[in-house]
């Protein structure tokens, strides 16, 4: 273990353990009003009229007419309205907000409002969508030729479902006008995203908007874009009332109406000639929901890894993110990659069976290595540690032997084991970091010889305050308690980009490392000094073109191999997870405890995605799995034997050798789990989550 990896007490440990940490709902301001949203009850309708009850004094209804700036939330494209115009596009679309001093009265008023809808026919099924929000395609080699010359062409379709972030703290925001400015604070990942959105909705200059991140009880991507929407609504309400307004979502509201992982349908057409895979022709379909939000970037990431970790000379990838009248989907740990990695890993399993091989044997044959080209004609510039990771997992689990043993079982209990190989591209997809984000960090040395970190990245439970501080303290050679870090406040910190894409530590941490190195050189005792650093793309990167999908989509990759062993009870169709093993290459962990916590939590989330987390719309477009008793996420008892290992593969261009970590552990759990189910049940499976009801259908012979 490297010295930097040695675990320390987290910077926010005491505040959180003692209960002193203040979340947005803990803030109560003088004269503060409570806000609640009226959400559309219809999936698609024209609003004919809205009948309001008599409003008591001090109560307001806030809607599209109150938006002083532009009635659009700035995300990537700006089609999400702050409050709906004339039509509603999904069950949950925000129509208006009621604000007032007593929450009970606000709720009463909300119940008494009558919205008269002229109902239109919603599109709920992504296969029936008539609106393609985004379409991308890229290719290499000659896919048509590969298909024409193939001995056999295998075609399969894979499906994945919604996944809800289920963070502990629901969405919440507090906005207050003062001195001609607007301050917005709340539970969020990306202060400057919120900042830009609020300025646009209010029609304010950027200097007149302040955004502060409060202590945030989990995000997992769910607080990347959605807080921009809620912040605009809350700020507009605060502007109208000219008072502080606080909105805290209830759990059901949060689960039903905030962004989730995109459901997907992927079709793979694979050409095989002379026992070799000669090409993959891949069609990816993501359900965006009613608005575009982050769908273009989610889709891009999904497409870039659609061929998994495999070297293919001929490849054609087409992807669409389509509109449906359902809740807008957005970011969730993995960001498009879990969907396509599920599909490609299952496809490889099924191909192997057709070719009379075990899937691992086939996968090993096509695995990329350092120097190989990526799907987009970039390069794997660094060592790809998959071979030693596979051996490590095999040693831990006796994988190869068990795979053989578990074929053709009978009896009540049937075991299975599956393995997945995958990566996560570290940082923003493509040239976003260089062309759009242009991250800036500062560190300020105070006369008392303390050093404060000024960056816009938020600690959302992933330990960023601690790891950032460790980098600065260790570089300067000062004790950790002399490094100060507060929750970001846009009045105080530069825009070092959002807290997303497994970028914060690798990219922003790298800038902090450089800033600290400079400060060390220039250190002047007893003086105040401010050092600023700007993002520079590493020299080795082959510039990425998003229009052509060419070049290095990521500077480097984090790698992982997962194995999951299951035991199916054929009487109840329930599955016991006998063990889940993951080995992870995240470069050098800047704190081993933090990394192991991330790996365990993410892996378990991935197992939930694979096995039990099921969410659907009914015929009216309503999500009924809107509580934690209807939407089941795993507990520690579901995977007691959860083993995570870290391998040492330092990234030369990351701070202390670190690279992206946060998303990686979720990405490959689903294919490992479902392959284990295949091994136990002796059939091919094509969907995640694969639930007990699905298992029962197999056992009853209802599924092929």
């Amino acid at each position, binding site marked *: 273990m490297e010295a930097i990896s040695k675990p320390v007490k987290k910077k926010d440990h005491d505040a959180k353990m003692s209960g002193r940490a203040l979340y947005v709902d803990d803030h109560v301001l003088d004269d503060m009003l409570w806000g609640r949203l009226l959400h559309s009850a219809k999936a698609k309708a024209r609003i004919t009229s809205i009948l309001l009850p008599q409003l008591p004094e001090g109560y307001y209804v806030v809607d599209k007419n109150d938006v002083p700036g532009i009635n659009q939330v700035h995300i990537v494209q700006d089609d999400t309205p702050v409050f709906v115009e004339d039509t509603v596009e999904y069950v949950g679309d925000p129509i208006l907000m009621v604000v007032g001093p007593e929450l009970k009265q606000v709720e009463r008023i909300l119940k008494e409002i009558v919205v008269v809808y002229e109902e239109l026919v919603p599109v709920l099924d992504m296969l029936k969508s008539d609106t393609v929000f985004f379409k991308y395609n890229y290719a290499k080699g000659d896919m048509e030729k590969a298909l024409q010359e193939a001995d056999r062409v295998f075609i399969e379709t894979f499906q994945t479902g919604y996944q809800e972030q289920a963070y502990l703290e629901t969405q919440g925001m507090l906005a207050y006008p003062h001195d001609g400015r607007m301050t917005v604070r709340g539970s969020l990942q990306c202060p400057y995203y919120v900042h830009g959105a609020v300025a646009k909705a209010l029609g304010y200059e950027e200097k007149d908007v302040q955004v502060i991140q409060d202590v945030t009880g989990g995000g997992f991507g769910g607080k990347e874009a959605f807080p921009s929407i809620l912040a605009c609504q809350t700020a507009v309400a605060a502007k109208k009332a000219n008072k502080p307004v606080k909105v805290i979502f209830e759990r059901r509201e949060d689960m039903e109406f905030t962004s989730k992982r995109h459901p997907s349908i992927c079709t793979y057409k694979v050409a095989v000639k002379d026992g070799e895979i000669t090409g993959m022709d891949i069609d990816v379909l993501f359900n965006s929901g009613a608005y575009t939000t982050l769908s273009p970037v989610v889709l891009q990431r999904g497409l870039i890894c659609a061929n998994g970790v495999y070297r293919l000379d001929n490849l054609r990838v087409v992807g669409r993110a389509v509109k449906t009248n359902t809740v807008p989907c957005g970011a969730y740990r993995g960001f498009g990659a879990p969907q396509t990695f599920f599909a490609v890993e299952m496809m490889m399993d099924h191909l192997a069976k057709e070719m009379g091989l075990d899937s691992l044997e086939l996968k090993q044959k096509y695995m990329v290595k350092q120097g190989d080209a990526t799907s987009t004609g970039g390069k794997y510039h660094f060592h790809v540690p998959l071979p030693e990771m596979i051996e490590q997992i095999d040693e831990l689990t006796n994988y190869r032997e068990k795979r053989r043993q578990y074929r053709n079982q009978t009896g*009540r209990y049937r075991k299975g084991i599956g393995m997945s190989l995958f990566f996560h591209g570290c940082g923003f997809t493509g040239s976003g970091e260089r062309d759009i984000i242009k991250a800036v960090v500062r560190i300020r040395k105070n006369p008392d010889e303390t050093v404060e970190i000024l960056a816009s990245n938020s600690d959302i439970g992933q330990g960023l305050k601690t790891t950032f501080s460790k980098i600065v303290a260790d570089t300067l050679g000062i004790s950790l308690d002399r490094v100060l870090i507060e929750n970001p406040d846009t009045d105080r910190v530069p825009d070092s980009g959002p807290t997303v894409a497994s970028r914060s530590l690798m990219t922003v941490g790298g800038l902090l490392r450089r800033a600290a190195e400079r400060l060390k050189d220039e250190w002047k005792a007893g003086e105040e000094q401010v050092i600023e650093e700007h993002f520079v793309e590493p020299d080795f990167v082959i510039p990425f073109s998003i229009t052509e999908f060419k070049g290095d989509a990521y500077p480097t990759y984090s790698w992982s191999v997962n194995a999951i062993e299951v035991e199916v009870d*054929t*009487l*109840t*169709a*329930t599955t016991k997870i006998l063990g889940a093993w993951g080995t992870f290459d995240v470069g050098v962990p800047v704190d081993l405890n933090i990394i192991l916590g991330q790996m365990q939590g993410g892996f378990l989330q991935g197992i939930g995605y694979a096995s*039990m987390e099921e969410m659907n719309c009914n015929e009216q477009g309503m999500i009924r799995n809107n509580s934690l*008793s*209807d939407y*089941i996420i*795993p*507990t*520690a*008892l*579901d995977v007691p034997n959860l083993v995570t290992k870290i391998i040492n593969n330092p990234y030369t261009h990351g701070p202390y050798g670190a690279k992206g970590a946060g998303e990686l552990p979720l990405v490959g759990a689903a294919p490992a789990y479902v392959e284990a189910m295949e091994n136990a049940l002796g059939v091919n499976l094509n969907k995640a989550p694969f639930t*007990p*009801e699905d298992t*029962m259908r197999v056992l*009853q012979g209802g599924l092929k």
Partner: protein
Amino acid sequence: MVKSYHPVSLQEALAIRAREAVTPYAGGTDLMIKGDEKAGYLFLNNLSELKKITEDGEYIRIGAACTFTAIQESELAPAILKAAVSQIAAPAIRNLGTVGGNICNGSPKADSALVFWATDSKLRLVSSRGERVIPISEFYLGRNKTSLQADELLAEILMPKIGLNNYYYKKVGARNALAISRVSFAGILEIEGGRIVNCQTAFGAISEVVIRRPDLDAMLSGKTIEEAKKAVKEEYLRAYDQAILPIRGRISAEYRKVVCMNLLRDFLESNGI
């Protein structure tokens, strides 16, 4: 404003219950998630009379305010009951939740109630007017509907002492902890001198109330294992196949039905039938 009462004796509790419309509150694990500001709550946590586990010649008597943890730790509580309560929710809930609350909540998914159904337990209901002892099957009138009168409290559950040793219990939840039952099954089979003297089964979480069919279970009574296996088994399973009509809930009726029948068959086969 919530009204709350904290009686220190059963007698005092019953007097309040007779006087006012109050909601009995033992562990509160079902009530606290749907708090009603207009309700009056009668807290039963100080009533030691309701927290005892005792036995007499005929029954194991379980106080209604006994927590699941108390049952797990009791020497008198039968193994079938421990098997069920040990799989309820999680330790924090088991430390608070009570068997009385589990029964009076009226849910067909109540895991301890299923065992009381399967064992034909009786309930002792008390009020300031007196008391009545009824079979648990008469207590449940429908989903969330019970025959508990407005002035009554459930005081004790009386579990018949005989024939509890050879039992079968299976809970199917959506995960391994903090899970509401999707299907639950309990069965007991008493065999004497190679003959089945008593068979009792109950199915939970699949319909408005627990399914308990003594008329069908009687098909096995008096038969040897061999006779049961050869002559009665298939007919018995067919009868249950017709009797079990699960309702669609969070999980499909078809799934529940297959699981019920698989478990019933396994119950027989694990006894050599």
